[in-house]
């Protein structure tokens, strides 16, 4: 199999998609390194699902290309999809009349790598009822079935669209454990979209921020947490923030001469600019992954 030279499991270039006059994606260049756990963050309607649907060749982009495991998502779509475990945004994308057991056997035929024993184990651990029709399942049951279908062939790539949507907290936590064990047993690249970053905080090692169809940021977790921090400054009277400081949100005055904001940039650079404006950095705080992602979204929206 041909892999892209830089070791990307998923790569898009100049990807644009419009529905009528609505822009879903605009010139998106996604880079998901092989073996990474890449979290795609964005508000509802930011284009996350459109992006995953284009990767699965369920939607066509107006322009641009997408490569999955070295295969073109359109030209070699069938071969690419056979190696992907996909959980779509909607749990209703299952044939309603089919019994769960039949559905598992049906999907198995499309995946030469289907692991029968593992599938049984997943059915057991997800508590799935095989004689139940897919259409009569609850939202949570359908989601768990989709998980079993996506994982049972141990694909090299998982594309998960808001995977824990519709799961109650207990099942959600159990599902995350199952996913972690899966990753420990089978080396997998994961691309997951979510608006609940908190839940994936300790799994994510790469993050992409989508806003109104644009990928406004894409970096490793370490880079993100290093370059987006909260700063507290001591400032002289009448101080105005210099224009070369990238503040993610409005400055807040904490006490008399102290100001606080989330600033973007390497710490040395930020500190140098603060110092040059006659203010002093009192302290800096690292943010959680979610806070940092929200800060990038806020900055892009300003």
């Amino acid at each position, binding site marked *: 199999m041909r892999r892209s030279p830089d070791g990307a499991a998923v790569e898009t270039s100049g990807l644009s998609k419009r529905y009528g006059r609505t822009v879903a994606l605009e010139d998106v260049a996604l880079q998901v390194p092989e073996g990474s756990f890449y979290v795609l963050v964005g508000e509802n309607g930011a284009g996350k699902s459109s992006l995953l649907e284009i990767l699965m060749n369920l939607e066509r982009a107006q322009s641009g290309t997408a490569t999955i495991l070295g295969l073109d998502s359109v030209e070699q779509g069938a071969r690419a999809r056979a190696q992907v475990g996909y959980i779509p945004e909607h749990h209703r994308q299952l044939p309603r009349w089919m019994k769960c057991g039949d559905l598992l056997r049906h999907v198995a035929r499309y995946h030469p790598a289907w692991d029968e024993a593992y599938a049984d184990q997943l059915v057991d651990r997800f508590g799935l009822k095989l004689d139940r029709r897919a259409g009569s399942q609850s939202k949570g049951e359908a989601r768990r079935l989709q998980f079993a279908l996506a994982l049972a062939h141990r694909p090299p790539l998982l594309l998960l669209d808001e995977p824990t949507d519709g799961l109650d907290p207990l099942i959600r936590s159990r599902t995350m454990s199952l996913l*972690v064990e899966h*990753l*420990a047993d089978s080396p997998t690249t994961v691309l997951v979209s979510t608006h609940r970053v908190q839940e994936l905080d*300790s799994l994510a*090692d790469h993050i992409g921020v989508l806003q109104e169809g644009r990928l406004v940021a894409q970096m490793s977790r370490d880079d993100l*947490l290093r370059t987006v921090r909260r700063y507290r400054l001591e400032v002289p009277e009448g101080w105005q923030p210099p224009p070369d400081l990238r503040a993610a949100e409005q400055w807040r005055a904490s006490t008399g001469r102290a100001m606080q904001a989330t600033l973007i940039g390497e710490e040395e650079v930020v500190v140098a600019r603060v110092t040059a404006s006659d203010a002093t950095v009192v302290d800096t705080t690292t943010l959680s992954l979610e806070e940092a992602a929200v800060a990038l979204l806020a900055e892009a929206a300003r």
Partner: protein
Amino acid sequence: MIVNLDVQDARPIYLQIIDEVRRALVVGSLRPEDPLPSVRELASELRVNPRTVSQAYQELERAGVVYVRRGEGTFVSADALPGPAERRALADRFAKKILIEARRSGIGLEELSAALRRVAGEETAAEGGAGQPEDAVAAVPTGSDEGGEG
């Protein structure tokens, strides 16, 4: 071994895991030749990326704290007993944490160390106070006997 991760902690997760293993050694809940949980077990328990746990174990192996027995897992090295340096590193970490918190509330080093001594003193006094009656009964006669002989 109990590993606790703090999501508010600024340090990368693999460093937190390394620190937790070192802490378990200092505390004594992990001893030489003890097995570490498998990558799969620990990742699943902590809900962290298995690669992060592997990274932590690799660093610990490189530092000679643990070693790998092929097919059996990861074990604490025979000579991994924590020395004064480890204890100091652990103490430094606590100090740093408290110092940052204190500074955030506008409390300086002098004030903080005075408060630490005061609070610790109060604790000892409280403990001593509770244990005093028995101790006092036992201690006083011995003391007076010795005094009498001397």
